[in-house]
């Protein structure tokens, strides 16, 4: 592989320069790339950010992809990405090469990452850190530590 631009990238017409150091988030469901970029505050920094939308994917048909230079993710950010893009792959790029490849997984416990979908839950009414337990990953089902409410995929929102 030449740097972090793959042959698939070339097929997708992604002929932008590879990044030297940074992160590539791959296998994002189509339409969710911007959402993840916003969630990671990528638009508020000076480094290079490349967002590809509706790219061809052999695995999923279509996908979004993000490349960001000089930015590495924290573990809480991995957790947040897992809720938006459960099949995402995170490539850590160092000196143009893939230094590490990680697959995101929804953790067993989500501490203050997502919002309980029960509007009457104490965690939505007062300044209480949310805590959700993963009971199923496919489909995604989370249960609130406080009110036992089942939060189902599609309705789960990230904490601001």
């Amino acid at each position: 592989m030449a740097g972090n631009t793959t042959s698939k990238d070339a097929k997708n017409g992604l002929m932008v320069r590879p990044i030297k150091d940074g992160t590539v988030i791959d296998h994002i469901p189509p339409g969710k790339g911007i959402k993840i970029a916003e969630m990671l505050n990528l638009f508020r920094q000076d480094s290079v950010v490349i967002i590809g939308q509706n790219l061809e994917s052999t695995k999923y048909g279509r996908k979004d992809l993000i490349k960001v230079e000089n930015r590495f993710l924290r573990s809480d950010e991995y957790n947040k990405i897992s809720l938006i893009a459960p099949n995402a792959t995170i490539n850590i790029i160092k000196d143009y090469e893939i230094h590490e490849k990680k697959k995101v997984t929804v953790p067993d416990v989500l501490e203050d990452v997502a919002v309980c979908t029960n509007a009457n839950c104490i965690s939505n009414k007062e300044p209480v850190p949310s805590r959700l337990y993963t009971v199923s990953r496919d489909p995604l089902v989370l249960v609130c530590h406080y009110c036992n409410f089942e939060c189902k995929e599609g309705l789960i929102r990230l904490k601001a």
Partner: protein
Amino acid sequence: MGFVNRDIVSIKDFKKEELEHIFKTAEKMEKDGYDSTLLRGRKVGLLFYEPSTRTRMSFDAAAHALGAETIWFAGVEGTSVMKGETLKDTIETVANYVDLIVMRHPFDGSARWAADVTTNRTKRGHKKVPIINGGDGKNEHPTQTMLDLYSIRKTQGRIDGLEIAMVGDLKYGRTVHSLSYALSMYDCKLKYVAPDSLQIPEHIETFLNRNHIQFTKHSKIEDIISSADIIYMTRIQKERFPDENEYNKVKGIFKINRALLSRAKPTARLMHPLPRVDEISVDADEDLRAYYFEQAGNGVPVRAALLSLVMGAIE
């Protein structure tokens, strides 16, 4: 059995043998009388953010019968909650004054949060102040379920092998949800009687199926009246209906009067978590099968047993 300083938040936190231990303790207290020195010098905080007659007064009665003092508020009028104080801050404060807190609060999950707050205090060197959930929004009311089970056990001599019918608002009523979870630990036949719009929710059905609990759904009280050992009535809550016509369609169907109750087995008992509106007519009160007021009375021994166990006064 591990009751000391334990938070009583959800009925799902309990095993069958733990519930049986609570019932045996309550039974002994009822039989032998309350020891008024058992909790002498202890203080119980009763924090009732929402209206309550039976839960608050029976906890108060139970605490006093065992020699404990109670300090309380009933309704947030006159408290700092009116000034916007958070639940955390109220709990942090009251935990300095009492040995145990009983709380009813309008928000779902508030009891678990209060329990977390008093557990976190222990990391700062304070003693644990256990929380007993007296009802958190539409979520749970575990001590009601305990006294319901105690009442079933007391009147029938057992819980296993009984046919238990729950009638009325099965969709929104938290008491029937918690009772269903608790009865899944026993070998019972459950019958749910409600209009389609108020039948038992899907997640409870899934839970019962997963635990191989026998249950059937019915649309008329007449279907179950002659075979049920326990008829557990609930109030149909008008405020839950999207429009009044829908409410009017169902409100009259689920009523029991003395004539209908007379068709029940002589050993059957009619229960209700109360308050009732008109789902049980007043003439039924005189039937020996009507048990709802005695059921409310059972709140005292069950709550006295819980206070004693959680405060470590008995094992």
